[in-house]
């Protein structure tokens, strides 16, 4: 079963890099691990035959977000020199909370009758996503454009030189 092997290796990469993101002492290393986690997610999308989303994931997340986070770290952090502890004293509480939520969700998932086989694809998924976006979901799509414009204006407003 090549799909099973692919799924398990992607799961190991994803969980391992996600753990490295939250546990790494150096924030810069965290971002690099985040890039790996986002690429692993793109792999999961490929496994689910959503090629378009895998490409969008790589372009926007692994390309865009990682770049701006690196810029933010370079601006705000001393990369060399004194080390400040990156985690607060709530590690135990945080671990208990997230383990409890994982246990709750996994328990709920295991109780539900879920499909084990994928529905056969009837049409090209990329094509049907494009058609849905421009027919049934055209209003949310236009609103998304407004949101992007607002975010861009906001970022420019914040980044303006002080007067």
């Amino acid at each position, binding site marked *: 079963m090549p799909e099973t092997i692919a799924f398990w290796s992607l799961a190991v990469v994803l969980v391992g890099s996600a753990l490295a993101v939250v546990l790494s002492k150096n924030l810069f290393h965290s971002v690099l691990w985040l890039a790996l986690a986002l690429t692993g997610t793109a792999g*999961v999308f490929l496994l689910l035959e959503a090629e378009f*989303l895998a490409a969008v994931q790589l372009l926007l997340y692994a390309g865009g977000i990682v770049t701006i*986070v690196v810029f933010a770290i370079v601006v705000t952090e001393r990369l060399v020199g004194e080390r400040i502890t990156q985690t607060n004293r709530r590690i135990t509480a945080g671990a208990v909370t997230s383990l409890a939520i*994982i246990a709750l969700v996994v328990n709920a998932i295991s109780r539900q009758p879920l499909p*084990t086989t994928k529905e056969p694809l009837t049409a090209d998924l990329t094509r049907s996503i494009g058609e849905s976006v421009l027919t049934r*979901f055209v209003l949310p799509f236009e609103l998304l454009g407004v949101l992007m414009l607002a975010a861009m204006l906001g970022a420019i407003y914040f980044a303006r030189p002080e007067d």
Partner: protein
Amino acid sequence: MGLQAYLTLAAIVFGIGLFGVVTRRNTIGILLGIELMLNAVNINLVAFSRFSGSDVGMVFTVFAICITVAEAAMGLAIVILLFRIRRTVMADHLDLLKG
């Protein structure tokens, strides 16, 4: 692999992201945790969509990815602005709203 395996993987990644949000002191670290959590949600949406044979979940994922990018851009802009004002990005030193 069944739908259950994908949902479990997403739940684990979500939990790890939540751990990051709760324990990081650095604001940028908190944002990285939020990115992980949103990423887990996207895995869920795509998995449900693929296993139910409908493309609605994937359209939602496109929207979710765009909104996440806008959120990250604004979040980092706010972090840089805070750094300009307070010279720190540690969340426990940021108490501007405490009267």
